[in-house]
């Protein structure tokens, strides 16, 4: 896997996570711009008193799209979630995958197979392995009944 997080020029620094724009794919740039736009939503953006999108959700979603940009996935739809979270939605060959980033940075998922069978659950914040497994399921590389 390619890891484009900055560390090549100064291998012992850059503990804080960033993605160099010159090395980001159009897929990743588009998703980053959408997250940037949603990160600026003000209090009460949904007119039901929701908080702005919380920093932990922004950070985890930003990390997740960077991990997932290594895999050939269709572009995600990205939505704000009332309460201060973010949600990524993917659709491929009849399968649907939703990944939600809660305001505290924890993650939940919902997989909907072509047959309509559903699986949902939660996963630890920043779990790269779990994100890859969900992506492979979406691509049809794992059994449709697969669950984390």
């Amino acid at each position, binding site marked *: 896997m390619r890891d484009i997080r*900055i*560390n090549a*020029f*100064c*291998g*012992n*620094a*850059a*503990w*804080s*996570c*960033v*993605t*160099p*724009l*010159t090395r*980001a794919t159009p897929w990743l740039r588009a998703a*980053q711009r959408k*997250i*940037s736009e*949603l*990160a600026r939503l003000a209090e009460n953006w949904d007119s039901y008193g929701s908080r702005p999108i919380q*920093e932990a959700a*922004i*950070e985890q979603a*930003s*990390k997740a799209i*960077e991990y997932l940009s290594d895999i050939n996935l269709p572009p995600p739809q990205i939505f704000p979630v009332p309460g201060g979270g973010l949600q990524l939605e993917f659709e491929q060959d009849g399968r649907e995958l939703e990944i939600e980033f809660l305001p505290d940075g924890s993650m939940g998922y919902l997989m909907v197979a072509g047959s309509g069978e559903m699986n949902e659950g939660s996963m630890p914040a920043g779990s790269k392995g779990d994100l890859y497994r969900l992506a492979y399921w979406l691509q049809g590389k794992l059994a449709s009944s697969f669950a984390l």
Partner: protein
Amino acid sequence: MLPKFDKPPVIEMVVGVEFADLAGLSIPHFGLFWAQIQDKYPHCEVKEPAPSRIEIFEGQDKQEVILNFPILRPPPIRCWYINSQQTWLLQLQQDRFIQNWRKTASDQTYSHYTHTRSRFEKEFKRFQEFVRKQQLGPLQIRQCEVSYVNHIELGKEPGALSELAEIFPYLSAQKQGDFLPAPDGVGLNASYVIPENRGRLYVGVQTVFRHSDAKEILQMTVSAKVIPTSQDYSEILNAFDLGHEWAVRGFTDFTSDKMHKLWERRQ
């Protein structure tokens, strides 16, 4: 006297050493060492090791090639030991001992070089003692590093992406015609030899997407790598001080007076 800033854009600082490979430092040692510092660094992460990069100059021998036979050598790893506030990080691998400080909140006070260096010294002494007790061999320091990572927010500060020259005078002659639009990404690396081939200063500037707040910003990394002239402790400290001087003066030279005012330069 070195330039001083009251509000520098520093978000991360690094003080560390690269030493001759401690081939005997194997996975159990990383755990044993963690047990000694766990009260201060309760979190541990295992990472891929960073490649060796000792400065070489014309006429010097090429860097020694380390043959890596997985059967004969323990698998190389790097351990990150992190404090509970996520502000201090110790990095350990078979040839590296690095202390990082980072800013995690906007109101957090910047850890000055003297403080970061003294923290490094304390932790490194503990590591030296650990190496001695575990009979892992002599610690031959090959290079000292002082690095700063700076985040410069675009839009909030003067100098939009199309006006990088306002931040970095170095770039003032770059734009000749009016055909090209503003770049949507920028990457620039420069390196400078420290006189008498003592080491090099690296300056890197690039536009990045910051994960913590989803902002596009400029990241400027200034990294001084200095080769100590001997293994005397005072010389190791001198090498750090030389690296610090080059990092601070290099940062100041590379950035504009306009930005210095914004960062509240005092001297």
